[in-house]
């Protein structure tokens, strides 16, 4: 069972308000379509480090909730992050892994041991305070508000399939542009 990523993100956008949201690579295109906001941090450049950016932001701005939309391929490139985040224990961090079973940004190639890996189980073993796996939009609508309200670090595995093509899909020049980071800095300064 799984849900469409665009529909999941549209629902999430209604829940997170003015939270800082860190998204990465292909998920970032869907996320900025769902929520065009100054407090979107687009983690591009090195693969796998969205959660580390999120940890730095959460520690730097303990007054704000930080939601990370990691990829499953991305997390696999930086698994140590689970232990580092658990040890740091940021109460304001919600680390979501958007699991589609592929390295989507570089061609949709399958991740190792696809469909067998239990990402929430890994996060629990690493020491996250709360973990969950959500596999349908109904479950997401019901459970996600409660998970967002918990004291972090919280880990949520979102099992998704692609949805509609986002308007900026593949526009890496936009993701990498200095304007998006300046907008984020200005947005953070303003709150």
């Amino acid at each position, binding site marked *: 069972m799984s849900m469409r990523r665009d529909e999941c993100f549209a629902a999430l956008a209604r829940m997170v308000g003015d939270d800082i949201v860190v998204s990465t690579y292909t998920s970032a295109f869907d996320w900025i379509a769902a929520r065009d906001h100054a407090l979107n941090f687009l983690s591009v450049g*090195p693969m796998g480090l969205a959660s580390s950016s999120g940890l*730095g932001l959460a*520690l730097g701005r303990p007054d704000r909730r930080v939601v990370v939309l990691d990829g499953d391929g991305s997390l696999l490139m930086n698994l*140590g992050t689970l232990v*580092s985040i658990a040890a740091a224990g940021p109460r304001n961090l919600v680390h979501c892994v958007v699991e589609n079973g592929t390295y989507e940004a570089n061609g949709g190639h399958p991740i190792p041991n696809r469909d067998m890996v239990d990402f929430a189980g890994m996060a629990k073993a690493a020491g996250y305070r709360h973990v969950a796996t959500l596999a349908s939009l109904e479950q997401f609508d019901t459970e996600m508000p409660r998970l967002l309200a918990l004291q972090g670090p919280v880990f949520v595995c979102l099992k998704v399939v692609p949805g509609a093509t986002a308007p900026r899909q593949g526009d890496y020049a936009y993701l990498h542009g200095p304007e998006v*980071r300046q907008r*984020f800095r200005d947005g953070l300064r303003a709150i």
Partner: protein
Amino acid sequence: MDPYRRIHQELTRIGVTLAATLPDDWVGPLIGLLEADPAIIHVPVAREAEAVTICSGAFFGGVRSVAVMGNTGLLTCTGELATLNLRHQIPVFCIVSMRGSIDDHRVYQEIQGRRTIAVLDAYDFPYHIVDHPDEIGCIPDAYEACRLQKRPFILFLTRRLLKGRPA
């Protein structure tokens, strides 16, 4: 005052409040001081690229930070320093042990000693070598240079500085 305390003092003086670290034995005592300082959030990490990225995230949050690591760790994360910090002009201040010098008699540090500067030059990462306790006072200038240049800046600590005697 021992060099580690002087470095910690300088970092405090310039307002560093977050340190992300992965030790080798030369920088370990500095990490111990950072861990013991209640004014500093200390984040031990599992991989040096995490340290660099946590500091980068903290930068956007308005926090002054430092990444502390060994020379080998620096070499493992030059790709991330290039594609994150250099590409996106995000300053990150790294304090790194300068391993593989002629007084570092560890054969497994040989390549670090011979090629690290060449690698940094290839990426055009600025660096500065602190070789004597009197030079620790350069840290505020080095930190400011990092912020002005909006790129990774490596502050190397030599064995002579930290140990004061040959191996």
